[in-house]
């Protein structure tokens, strides 16, 4: 027991001050929201954030939006995700239970969603929790390009979540098929199958991008226009 306490003491508190304090400084090479030249546009939902495309990246991790069209960046402006409507917030605002469905993901998005449960991000302090059954959930978080073999299981999970419910697409694959978009085995994006309330782009998105999106959806971070 003493050993447990000593180790606990040595570990200290590791939780990020985000969102109240400053978010951590991400490393120089981190590829966040792209910097778009005047007169050009880019579809964040299709981007896999590869280094060699000539696109310049900022270190801004805030990228989650409410609509598919919002992922089309023109002139660098982005309208970050807005909070749910008032009736929905009254239900979910202080307690949101989510069921995660991996539908063909490469396990990178899944891993960085899992990270939100570590002491660093400590998701449960916001009243958000991942639960074991869709019947206990208020919504689903989908990763992966929705493979042909996962489609039915995804639909059954979605249908098992009681109304009203929300759907969150995490990662380029779930939004648009990502690197697998050309494969006949996958779908063209989650919103071609079920309506989506929050889009979190990235390959995979940084945990802060996902957390920022969830908090905006719940009105914990106020809507604002971001530009880089």
């Amino acid at each position, binding site marked *: 027991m003493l050993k447990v306490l000593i180790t606990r003491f040595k570990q200290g508190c590791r939780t990020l001050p985000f969102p109240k304090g400053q978010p951590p400084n991400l490393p120089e090479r981190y590829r966040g929201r792209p910097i778009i030249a005047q007169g050009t546009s880019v579809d964040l939902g299709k981007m896999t954030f590869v280094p060699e495309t000539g696109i310049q990246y900022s270190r801004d991790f805030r990228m989650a939006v409410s609509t598919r069209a919002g992922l089309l960046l023109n002139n660098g402006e982005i309208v970050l995700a807005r909070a749910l409507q008032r009736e929905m917030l009254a239900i979910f605002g202080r307690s949101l239970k989510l069921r995660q469905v991996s539908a063909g993901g490469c396990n990178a998005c899944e891993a960085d969603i899992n990270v939100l449960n570590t002491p660093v991000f400590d998701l449960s302090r916001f009243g958000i929790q991942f639960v074991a059954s869709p019947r206990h959930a208020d919504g689903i978080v989908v990763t992966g*390009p929705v*493979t042909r073999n996962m489609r039915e299981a995804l639909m059954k999970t979605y249908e098992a979540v009681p109304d009203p419910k929300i759907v969150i697409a995490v990662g380029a694959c779930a939004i648009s098929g990502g690197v697998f978009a050309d494969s006949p085995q996958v779908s063209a994006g989650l919103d071609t199958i079920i309506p989506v309330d929050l889009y979190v782009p990235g390959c995979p998105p940084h945990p802060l991008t996902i957390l920022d999106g969830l908090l905006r959806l719940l009105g914990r971070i106020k809507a604002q226009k971001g530009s880089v």
Partner: protein
Amino acid sequence: MNLFNGGNILLADIPVLTMEEFRQEVLYYCHSGARLQNLFASPENSGKVRLYAILGFDEEAQIRVQSTLVSSDNLQYQSLTPVLLAAQNFEREIAEQWAVVPLGHPWLKPLRYHSNYRGVEDLWADIMTRPIPGAYPFYGVDSDEVHQVAVGPVHAGIIEPGHFRFQCHGEEILHLEIQLGYQHRGIEPMLTGNDLKRSVLLSESIAGDTSIGHSTAFCEVVESLTGCVVPPRAQVIRAVALELERLANHVGDLGAMGMDAGFLPSSSYFGRMRGDYLNLLLALTGNRFGKGLCRPGGVLFDLDQTMSDDFCNKLVIYKKEFEDVSELLFSRPSVLARFENIGVISPMIAKQLGLVGPVARASQQERDVRIEYSSGIWQFNHVPISLSATGDVYARALVRRQEVLRSLDFLLKILPTLPKSSISSPVGTIKPNAFAVSLVEGWRGEIMHVGISNDQGGFSRYKVKDPSFHNWFGLSVAMRGQQISDFPLCNKSFNLSYCGHDL
């Protein structure tokens, strides 16, 4: 015909044996110490299907390639599985991908549920009309006292989909059948073709937690076929990234195993510490999983003096923290009671099944690509192999603990002495009609990529083998006779990839 890791050979130089000779060769070598590393098929222009067997001679670091033709009018051959257990998944894969029947395979059923690549009638008429792999018949045990437990594809945690069907007598598991395929994205056909720029991105997403492992293997196939010599600095940077990937995952696994044994302190700490290694990968590559680092010819990001000093300073602290927390985990009687004698794989079974990686090493199988098939920087920097003999959950935890410490020592040794050179060499065109093999010791074990080139600078067939392809069957076998409540813990001790298997 023998090759070294990263070697290549003209297709015409690979002997084509008769089916009987092929069978005898494979069985002879596999029963006298070699290991079936791969068995796959590729279409020939003649309409025939060519079978390739890749046998690994671990002690000699040699890879032997054999082939035979299955004639086009009679697409069947006598299955190897009844006399060579390690072939079972490979033969199911061949049957599904090319509609070739391995006669006498004891449990021939689809692996990933897709139509075949020859565009002919599938061996299973309803494979495309019945959408759920889990709807296929399972190996059953018939008795009034036996019940079935079905789990998945959507599991309780944030993990990938797969279906587990237990045949139980009370709490005791008589048999577990694991049915995957839900993650099938069709990666192999996508890697076939000439678009190498897209292929390298795909290789990073075969299994996102093994991005470095798979992208290194892909790059090495291309480098082999283009005769490209990767600068030493790039080789070291790849090795550094590979070890960071191993560290992140092994540390995370130890945390998850503690969690399933009901000991939460270590799982919280390990869970956070896993992120430290991912953040080092982020600093190096701009992505927490190392996506964007490895490209044919070298790497895209340098590791300069400032960064290497910073990494070393951090790794010294991480090592101390790891030692503290692993001591905490491994000294808890309640944890040890849950780890010991659970999910035992004997050395003999591990050998028969052809297991790889930490799972095999926990059953006293001396196999580690970094040592036996060393290429690149591994030829000059040896990491001691970590073995354990008991083959239980404890052994699999112990091997990971040792490997973490040894990877840390390796990094602390190599980071201050990075060779001075460029980080990328130009890549020429791909040698036509050749066959290249590359092996990488990913954190789950032996990754093998095989590229067969066409004459247009691309691939006519690309074969990916994730270590999980061997090891899933090991999990099934480990569960026999165990309590069903031990499954989550045992599953974590294997921590296999669904997407790496499903491709």
